[in-house]
């Protein structure tokens, strides 16, 4: 095989443009393994659960940490939209960040190895995904055409080869796969050992289950759409936070003409949560998603919705009207969606007034 290849441009590191958001209730030991890849980036840690507990952050990381007391203090009554006792609280981190990009990762996710045994720099791959276009309007059978070594195939219209902006990069997991409780119960020993060496754009009009464990997005483009809903304490449902955000953001991206990629990078997911606990959390969701999916598949956003916030408010109205009859929870959720946007806009006034991003630690 010819060794002919153009020099590969190094991936920009984006150290001053990207925040890493990590929800946690236990500890952040996992950061030690990520140190070579995360050091130098600013971390936003959202501490869930008991705020009197102290979360130890390993030395050498630049971070800000928020617990429930901080969330209540910063948002006041609007804090009601942020979940308590659920990793859904991570979206608070999205809201307070001042950066253009976000990478969010769970605290039981470690560095994975590719088939050659090399450690995978997940953050770098996410950045590559976000900085290269997406192709939602026509499926490329060789997957992401902008990847080194790939291209558009014969028959791919040239007018569609510029692609569109990539709003979200959805990574995957080796080892413990992201299964729901019923599947976990039936297949407790199944591990994901298959490394699929591809990134691809999820086509326009197609919904997908977005997992928040290993996710990156362009906050400037779609930040307001990444609300992780009402989960956990006092709520009838859990483990649908990222799903909800994923369906909303996909519908909005389809409307706005942006793309969502899935595939690489892989991380190593180490902890299998208790399937019985999960079943209790997901139970209602399993029934509700049968109504929710057709809702998202058919929802229409008006032409007047020219900003993500406007799209989101419209969505919230549709949720109230069409899903409110499924369960009163959706009524509350629709209200929370509005509260979220109000809080987002309050914390993120127009860019003219925005202060410059700074990297100083704001830990308590």
């Amino acid at each position: 095989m010819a060794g002919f290849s153009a020099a590969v441009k190094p991936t920009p590191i984006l150290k001053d443009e990207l925040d890493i958001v990590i929800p946690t209730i236990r500890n952040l030991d996992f950061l030690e393994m990520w140190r070579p890849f995360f050091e130098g980036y600013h971390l936003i840690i959202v501490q869930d659960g008991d705020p009197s507990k102290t979360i130890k952050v390993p030395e050498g990381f630049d971070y800000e940490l928020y617990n429930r007391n901080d969330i209540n203090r910063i948002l006041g009554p609007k804090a009601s939209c942020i979940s308590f006792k659920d990793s859904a609280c991570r979206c608070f981190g999205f809201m307070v960040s001042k950066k253009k990009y976000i990478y969010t990762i769970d605290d039981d996710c470690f560095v994975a190895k590719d088939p050659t045994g090399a450690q995978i720099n997940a953050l770098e791959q996410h950045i590559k995904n976000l900085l290269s276009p997406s192709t939602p309007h026509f499926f490329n059978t060789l997957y992401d055409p902008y990847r080194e070594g790939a291209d558009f195939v014969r028959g791919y219209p040239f007018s569609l080869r510029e692609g569109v902006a990539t709003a979200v990069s959805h990574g995957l997991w080796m080892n413990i796969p992201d299964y729901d409780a019923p599947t976990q119960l039936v297949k407790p020993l199944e591990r994901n050992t298959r490394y699929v060496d591809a990134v691809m754009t999820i086509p326009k009009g197609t919904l997908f289950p977005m997992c928040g464990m290993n996710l990156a997005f362009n906050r400037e483009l779609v930040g307001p759409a990444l609300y992780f809903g009402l989960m956990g304490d006092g709520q009838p449902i859990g483990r649908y936070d990222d799903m909800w955000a994923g369906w909303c953001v996909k519908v909005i991206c389809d409307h706005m003409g942006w793309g969502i990629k899935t595939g690489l990078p892989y991380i190593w997911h180490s902890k299998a949560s208790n399937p019985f606990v999960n079943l209790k959390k997901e139970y209602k969701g399993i029934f509700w998603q049968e109504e929710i999916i057709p809702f998202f598949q058919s929802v229409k956003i008006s032409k007047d919705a020219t900003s993500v916030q406007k799209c989101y408010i419209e969505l919230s109205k549709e949720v109230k009207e069409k899903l409110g009859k499924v369960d009163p929870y959706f009524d509350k959720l629709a209200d929370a969606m509005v509260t979220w946007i109000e809080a987002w806009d309050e914390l993120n006034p127009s860019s003219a007034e925005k202060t410059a991003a700074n990297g100083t630690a704001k830990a308590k």
Partner: protein
Amino acid sequence: MSVVNNIEDGEIDIVIGALHSDLRPFMSAWKSIFSRYHLIIVKDPDLKDDLQIPEGLSFKIDIYTKSHIDKVVGSSTSIAFSGYSCKYFGFLVSRKKYIVSIDDDCVPVKDADSFLIDPVAQHLRNLATPATPFFFNTLYDPYRNGADFVRGYPFSLRSGITCALSCGLWLNLADLDAPTQALKPEKRNSRYVDAVMTVPARVMMPISGINIAFNRELVGPALCPALRLTGEGKVRWETMEDIWSGMCVKVVCDHLGLGVKSGLPYVWRNDRGDAIESLKKEWEGVKLMEEVVPWFQSMVLSRTATKAEDCVAEMAKRVKEQLGGSDPGFGRAAEAMMDWVELWKKVGSGPSPV
């Protein structure tokens, strides 16, 4: 083992379009994989030399040439079965439920231990397991060993629907168009992506004819030799027939509630031809594609079209009415599609016409 995934060997035809007269290297390379199946080899009617097939092969082969084509199809048809389109004749006269078709410049891929990877078995697995076009599974094919539906995948969509078409890929010489390959003449595909996935409903894609398999009973008539470039040649860079046919098949599958998968299996595609040489001829195809993609994407067939041939007939009418005016190539494609439906009705089933 004569049954793979509930498909018996006897339900399969391997259809090869012979664009080269010397098929000995091809047949040797595929011998161990093809030998259990029935083969249909259709010789490109433009090929002057006799076909050379290795001696003493144990498989069952039927070879069809120009004379067979003329006898069955007659001369009054607008369909040209020359070049790569010759394989459609094989699709037409086959009487099996499943067809696997691979270009004659492809050989099996070797794995790390130099064992041949069997694309036929993978195609059959793809066709025998359901497709899931209504919701994207982020772990790709949920029916594969070691995989499943992920959290958030609606349970009501987990039984999937029948897969009617399996589109494989290519290592080495990928199916790029001439301008792309000409820009990077040394570029070869070395990435083996270990995944099969369903192409979502209503999503259009370029379906390459180099390495495909399909359920002939369900969608046979929808793979139609219709769009011919005026400069159509004998390398894939100089054709669009499969791309056009593929768009038709995808629309038909979406309409009939059938699935299309893409990904594994790979075949190894040998170097052939010169992309720069082919550039001039392919531009016509590239221009035509620009027009048709939005048109196919917005196609909604009528509810009364419940079989593949009805769908094709309806599409043919629309091609004639809505695209015929912009390029004579479309008008000819429409004619060919209508002729194909008639041909299929006449000789696509019942006793073999050859």
